[in-house]
């Protein structure tokens, strides 16, 4: 066998290894219902949930509870299937949180509460914003 053939085999093997591990380490986007089932089934992996914040008439986000001394907070998130869930974040409220509409939470269930280890904020696109301050 020529050296180049051995090299090709090694490269392909590493590439396949990378693909397999990518698929294995990848997280998933699920709804809260599925996330809850996964957690009760003993799956400890962090998952992604995409959801929307509920807002009242004047545009304030509903369901925000500040922890003591503002170092943690919780809020209510509605996933794409319409399921409401209390999400707890054990860090101070991220900047711009109150301006977001859609957020992605990464974390897992602990009991009946979803504990987020990371929050990605999706700020509304400037093009959808139809308010001009006069």
């Amino acid at each position, binding site marked *: 066998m020529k050296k180049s053939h051995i090299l090709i085999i090694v490269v392909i093997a590493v590439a396949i290894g990378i693909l397999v591990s990518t698929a294995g380490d990848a997280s998933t986007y699920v709804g809260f219902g599925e996330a809850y089932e996964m957690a009760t089934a003993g799956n400890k992996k962090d*998952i992604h949930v995409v959801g929307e914040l509920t807002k009242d008439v004047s545009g304030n986000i509903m369901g925000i509870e500040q922890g003591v*001394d503002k170092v943690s907070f919780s809020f209510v998130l509605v996933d794409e299937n319409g399921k409401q869930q209390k999400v707890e974040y054990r860090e101070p409220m991220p900047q711009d949180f109150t301006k977001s509409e859609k957020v992605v939470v990464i974390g897992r269930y602990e009991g009946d509460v979803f504990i987020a280890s990371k929050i990605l904020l999706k700020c509304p696109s400037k093009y959808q914003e139809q308010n001009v*301050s006069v």
Partner: protein
Amino acid sequence: MIHYFIGDLGHFFVITSFVAALASAFSYFKATNAGSLEKIDFWRKNGSLSFYTHAAAVLGICVSLFVIIANHYFEYHYAYSYSDSKLPDHYLVSTFWNGQEGSFLLWMFWQAVLGIIIIHTNKFWEGPVMVVFALVQAFLASMILGVVLPGFDFRIGSSPFVLLRDVMHDAPIFISQPDFIPAEGNGLNPLLQNYWMVIHPPTLFLGFSATLVPFSFCIAGLWLKKYSDWVRPALPWALFAGAVLGLGILMGGYWAYETLNFGGYWNWDPVENAVYVPWLILIAAIHTMITYKNSETALKASMILVITVFILILYSTFLTRSGILGDSSVHSFTDLGLSGQLLIYLLFFLFIAIALCIWRWKQIPTTSKEVSTYSREFWVFIGTLVLCLMGFQVLMPTSIPVWNSIVNNVFGGSSNMAPPADQIGYYTKFQLWFAIAVALLSGVGQYFWWKKIEVRQLGKELLAPILITFVVFVVVLQVLIFQFGSGSIRNFGYLLILFAGIFTVSANAKILFGLLKASPSLSGGAVAHIGIGLMLVGIMFSSGYSKIVSLNNTGLLYSSEAGDEYNRDNLLLFINEPRTMAGYRIEFKGDRLEPREKSGYVDPNDVEFTDNPFMVVAKRDIIYEDEKLFNAQDTFEIFPENRYYEIQLTGQSGKQHRLFPRIQDNPTMGIAASPDIKRDITKDLYAHVVDLNDPEKAEWKEQEEVRIAANQEFFANDYVAALEKVERVFSIGSVKLDSVDVAVKAHIRVKGEYEDYIAQPIFLIRNRMVGRIPDEVSDLGVQLTLLNIHPEANQFSIGISTRQKDYVILKAMEKPFINVLWLGTLMVMTGFGIAIVRRFREFEKMREKGLE
């Protein structure tokens, strides 16, 4: 009045640039395929004239957009969205590329400049290379065209010259008043108000643009069947692209380190990965091109890699601008509806490149002889493969959203994969081992490169570097154990990368010393590889051994809900109450304002605020670091968004240092916290404010009343206070009182830890009504009110309200030997610089001989 002219002019330039780019591509295409010399000359002149027209139009677009921004024409959407009238001039420059349209423009601008350089330096390749250039420019111009196709309801590109009212056509104000112009813009995102954001985007886009040059030469080579000749002119450009793109990426990392508060310079976010991967492949391409120039091998590999780099640049543009990363990146992208156009742009060049390669593949010369295991070609090739796999490993998880989208939209399946939840841990796990391989190979490979040697000789050559490596390694281990404890050396991967990094440095240093004596102009590679070794060691230390030093040693639990991590890693600092941290006495001294015209910080207690948030009046002379900034009664401008929190560090030797981490509160953009960094030679101390007591929202305890005589001491929030005098006043602020009104002002001295404060509450009888104006000493959390005057007993009633004293919660980290990383970066750039000069001279020599 709406300034229509400048926008129309800008739009005219956009259309001109698009049309001229197409004309230039067509002319150069004709010139390349024309038969007679006369025709070639004619078409080439046409092509270069069109390209000059295009470049002038691009300059015109830039100037028009900048005029709109600099003159604050808020009737334009671009100026309204990304700037305001108070923005300092240099940040108006950042506004220019804050929007996607502006960044496309920046990219076009650089490519226009590079195109002109090519026209003037390379007559032989001008035709075919400029066809590719002009086509790319046409695609980019189409992104900002903003033209609706007649008959179709389809808009090509997004113009930076649209009026606000055309974007927000549903806003009530524009329905009632079409000519309305907002008086103020939305302002620039506070995170982008940083000097790195003024220079990082142009550098990065120059890097993007420079990758087009080797790609164009490669395509031209395939087209003209000059399969091997394209490498020489392309090589200096590939090196230039590698240097500039690398510098741009690192500037971005440095910006993140200084401005964002995730505590590092690299976060493996898709946006970062999208430029990291093409850079790795570009480095691989440079290596195969150099190999080809020396030994006629790896030509096909060079072509594939050079093409891949450019396609990956287009792919990264697609990833970051199409909105496809929406759910997987911390950056919020605005989807301008260009995803279709971006995809066509990507697929067009991908298809052309692949088609050309297939068509010409059989004709590309190859060497059939097997390369020896001990040849330099073999080892460089192995290194190239490692770099490619390294990039592939990052590319795959970053592309997960694309995979989902293909499965869901093209094949009708359903895929809900998400990128790994812990990005830093996940990528580090793989990249660490690739980096070890790269480091070892770049050490050994250099010996094969410079000395055609056998295995036995290799051992002899490498003996000295290996010995040095071991000695340095053992010394560094001792330092590690001494600094971080014996538990710190259990991570096998870290130890290996440390070893590999030191080895690369010492092996390349030996090569460098040899070269410096003989031919210093060839030393670029050795210098760059030393830099890479230093960077790896610096990254290993500053990230792997980064240590949180703001441990909670108050014994106080901030919050029972908040979890262990928060309570452990953050330090609560009440104002003027010293703590110890990382061998320092640390103390929070209060919040500070930033004056606009002078550099320094101002204590808000020293100024009076006015109705205009941008203007304050000095109560007394303001001195910062022995320099008088303002006289008493001076009115001066401040940045009302910025608050700095003065943290004083006192070392064991008594040496003092002050940190000013910042909180920026922009009403439309939100709140942003930025760290301040104390830089020492061996480590950085990095601190940012996590949380603070907001005095405006503070809860006041119930008021307490004391009845005292003048100069009698009393306690207010545990501070000693005394009423010094009471005087009648005839005006309050700017309001003059009538002669029947009575107002008295008390002077109460409150003794703080370090200084005395004077509170001046006012008691007022006006129109037979009693009024009381309390005064607050915000540093001490005390508010004093003159409640009543008892002339019969010569006594006064003082109301004391107290609240929790001001505090900040600080998170601080130590980043050991981060300067090794920056030093390595500098060496890599120097190495690139030396190599660029060398390769360009080579190319010039050949051109003078008339060979190109």
